[in-house]
């Protein structure tokens, strides 16, 4: 019975990972949902409080705005990098790909602190601008949304570059040459022939960055200095400072639902299977 054996070995391979997911992820998440609906009393109290709070609303707006701007910034910069790597100097390609991946070797915490050193009141950027006589008093480069965005784009950039790079490296150079030989100038060939073929990569990069940004904690907390309160930081406040487990859990349920909604809406426009799973 080879079929049976195949099935058994399939489950043998899947079960360990599945068990870890269930025990350490699914069960705790369900626990959070339970807390959200039961503390301090059973019912929708937490969600009513959440819906009525202006602070929560502001935090959700900031979260989605930061995530959206981060995504756009990462796509713009990442597209240029991915394009350059896949279309020029094949000798340097391994080095350039290594440079994209290198930041993963340094903890997000360290990278965020580095940005504080760079962007602070007497940070390197401000000192340099003052030294050059370009500004009188230091610019506010952090503890505001600008600082959060600069650091977020830096941290998220590889997540945008890698899917786009994979996509672009699979596009034969013959397409653009064909377009050129058929009468299209460089820009027209890029716009009408190359760019549409990179859309799957752009979409999967966008989705990855956006969803990761929605729940991001370390960088906004450090660079925002408490002034750019994204949802994840708001949750931390509720639980650590106010010991308000009920509202904290309700907020995380809200974030999870919002993220799921984004994926659902995205699925209407993008083939998620193709964008996230089947990379050529």
């Amino acid at each position, binding site marked *: 019975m080879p079929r049976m054996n195949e099935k058994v070995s399939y489950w043998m391979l899947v079960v360990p990972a599945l068990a870890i997911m269930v025990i350490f992820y699914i069960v705790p998440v369900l626990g959070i949902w339970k807390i959200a609906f039961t503390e301090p009393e059973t019912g929708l109290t937490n969600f009513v409080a959440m819906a009525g709070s202006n602070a929560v609303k502001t935090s959700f707006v900031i979260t989605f705005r930061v995530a959206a701007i981060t995504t756009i910034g990462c796509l713009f910069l990442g597209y240029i990098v991915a394009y350059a790597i896949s279309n020029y100097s094949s000798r340097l390609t391994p080095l350039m790909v290594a440079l994209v991946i290198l930041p993963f070797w340094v903890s997000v915490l360290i990278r965020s602190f580095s940005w504080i050193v760079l962007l602070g009141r007497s940070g390197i950027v401000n000192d340099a601008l003052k030294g050059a006589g370009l500004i009188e008093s230091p610019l506010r480069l952090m503890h505001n949304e600008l600082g959060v965005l600069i650091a977020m784009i830096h941290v998220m950039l590889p997540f945008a570059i890698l899917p786009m790079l994979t996509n672009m490296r699979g596009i034969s150079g013959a397409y653009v*040459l064909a377009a*050129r030989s*058929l*009468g*299209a100038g460089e820009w027209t060939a890029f716009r009408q022939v190359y760019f*549409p*073929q990179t*859309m799957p990569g752009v979409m999967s990069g966008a989705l990855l960055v956006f969803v990761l940004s929605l729940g991001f904690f370390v960088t906004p907390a450090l660079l925002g200095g408490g002034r750019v309160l994204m949802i994840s930081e708001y949750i931390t406040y509720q639980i650590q400072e106010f010991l308000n487990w009920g509202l904290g859990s309700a907020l995380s349920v809200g974030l999870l639902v919002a993220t799921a909604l984004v994926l659902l809406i995205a699925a209407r426009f993008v083939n998620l299977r193709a964008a996230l799973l089947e990379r050529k």
Partner: protein
Amino acid sequence: MTSPILSINDAVKTYGSIRALDQVNLDVAEGEFLTLLGPSGSGKTTLLSAIAGFIKMDGGSLTLRSEDITNRPPEHRDFGMVFQGYALFPTMTVRENVGFPLKVRKKPAAEIQKKVNDALEMVQMGAFADRMPSQLSGGQQQRIALARAMSFSPQVLLLDEPLSALDKKLRADLQWELKALHNQLGVTFIYVTHDQDEALSMSDRIIILKDGSIQQQGDPNTLYNRPRNKFVADFLGKSNFIDVTVGAQTGTTLQCAAKGVAFNVETDTHNAAGSDVKLALRPERLKLGAPGEEFLPAVVKQVSYLGERCQVIVKHETLGEMLISCPTWKTDITPVAGLAVSIGWDPDAPVVLSED
């Protein structure tokens, strides 16, 4: 030749220490089916890319109807091109692909519509206009690529090994179609291939390239029957080679001696007595007979049956192994390995190669 449509003068292109094009000079006549033939690395694709404008030559010039186009970008050269992998745009339908060159030229919609229909009709693909390229077979994609390259009535059509990805039977069918299309449209075709059968069956003229320079050019018949050097004789079809020492030449009759074998050759070349030359002998011009029937005794080493023809490798004591190709339907003997036979050829069969 009347004034050429396209002239390549002293084209040079080097990649590091490799000379991909080494002083290539070539005139292309209007309406001609010209084939660039050579093994990989011979410079044929480099030459086509230089004509298309995809690569910048290191030296030399390109003239289109006596206008210098050496530095003109590819989109302004007005050449259609068919690629090896077809390069149909995967995000566009067949209709959009074929209409692309017209759209970028900002033609009115009605004209685009008509020309796209005409081009698809020309390759008998009218029913497939609204499909995506990924829904078509290789042969169908090839036809669409051809329609796209022709839809804007280019001055010259460049074809880069367009049939190499297709299976043998389809390739043969498309060769007939391409040739018919060429006759019907009268457009100049420049065709790159490494396949000698393709080159022989379609071309008006073949240019044989090796190491970036032209070895020989001419119509298929001349090239096949009068190769100039060993490379051409061996690349275009197969040849047996015999090194001979030349004796006296009377008119067109040349006395030859090679390793104890003497025979006469009919040739239009002139050779000084005592010089060493190389003869090329086509396998199909060699004759196979029962022992004593032809003038050289030999033994069959190996036989390969190909249906209509039979290829036989025979060994002569001093001349070594020779390849014979004989029609299977009119041989008197059935060659098997180890059989004693005799071989021979007519005096006009060997070709005296004028260079090495």
